[in-house]
């Protein structure tokens, strides 16, 4: 199972292979939990998000279409969506400032087979830092704080059309900044082959 690509693992999960499912959790559970925690800022809620994500993986792996991208993207996209949906129901979380580091939590060194994550994280942080402030702001408020575009328009006091075009420009800018660092997310977010 060690040699399997993420696509191979997911295909096994789709056939009900519990060992493959466990391995997929060992590979992405940490990243999913860290993302969920960053968004919902509560350990119990973050754990619920991860559990719901893996329930969806278990029940939907069979229908995963490998032409639609990397399994890791699929997993983290689902995690993100479930976390954002949860934070929208838990309005109070948003009152907390964005850059309020979860001080009570102990950072965990990356798991061995995800050692590349450390490098990737630095590069992604660099790419984000290179974005113009309004671009970074719109991405962070939407992605990590769960603001909808109409909420963003209100908060930033700009027309909704501006929010839409700024979001589009920001995502393009992030893609270009990653590319400038030699990263092509669509091809690379696959821990098994890195």
């Amino acid at each position: 199972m060690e040699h399997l690509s993420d696509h191979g693992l997911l295909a096994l999960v789709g056939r009900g292979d519990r060992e493959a499912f466990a391995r997929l959790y060992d590979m992405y559970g940490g990243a999913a939990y860290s993302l969920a925690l960053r968004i919902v800022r509560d350990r119990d809620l973050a754990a619920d998000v991860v559990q719901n994500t893996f329930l969806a993986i278990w029940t939907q792996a069979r229908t995963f279409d490998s032409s639609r991208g990397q399994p890791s993207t699929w997993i983290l996209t689902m995690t993100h969506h479930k976390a954002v949906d949860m934070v929208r129901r838990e309005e109070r979380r948003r009152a907390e400032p964005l850059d309020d580091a979860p001080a009570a939590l102990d950072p965990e060194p990356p798991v061995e087979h995800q050692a590349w994550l450390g490098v990737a994280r630095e590069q992604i942080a660099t790419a984000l830092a290179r974005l113009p402030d309004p671009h970074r702001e719109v991405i962070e408020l939407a992605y990590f704080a769960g603001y909808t575009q109409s909420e963003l328009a209100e908060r930033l006091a700009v027309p909704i059309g501006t929010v839409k075009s700024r979001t589009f420009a920001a995502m393009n800018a992030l893609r270009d900044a990653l590319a400038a660092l030699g990263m092509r997310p669509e091809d690379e977010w696959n821990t098994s082959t890195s």
Partner: protein
Amino acid sequence: MEHVDELIAGHALRALSSEDEERVVVHLAECERCRRRLRETEAVAASLAYSVPQMAPPPELRSRVLAIAEPVVAAPAAEAPAVEAPARPGRPRPRHGWWPRVSLVAVPAMALALGAMVVWNVSLRNDLDSSRDDFAHGAAVALPGVGNVVAQTDGNATLFAHLRRAPAGKTYEAWVIRGTVALPAGVFEGGGTVELELTQSAKPGDKIAVTVEPKGGSRKPTTTPIATSRSV
């Protein structure tokens, strides 16, 4: 055809209004070019996931997650649990209220995990306040390996099941077990999370069971239940 590039960026961040979301989904269904763009944009968005500090998940989360994959559709086999005998007479009941509250604290980890999911399911359907209200009036009872049943004080009960799709030619059937009698309470196919209003009301002391039956369901269980709840 007018493409929806701007909306795709918002969609990948899950930030669209429901009208825009609908527009983009409708367009994606018929536009290969925009599906490709979405694939790229989602991958860029996923890179944001890797930018956060990595935290260790609580160790018990691993067991909760792996419990999802515990086999739940065993062929009717000897080792599968039989319908349990009715509760011993004289068992103390909570004195407050007509409907006994079942504490989820007492049930195993898997059931606990699924209990959390029921809250999730319900809060998806209602706003948070009204779902809390539901729970103030109802009791959630675990169906180990299957899901939960939430019974209301009026006897209406809803089954939340997380089962793989029933095998070809088979269906899942829910039962209200009253004493030694099994009353048919609805059939479902499984696959993803299923929410089933039981067609049979549940009274205090009843149990809920799920069996695998031939397509169309049976009037009496023909196989050993894959799960049986404690008394509701």
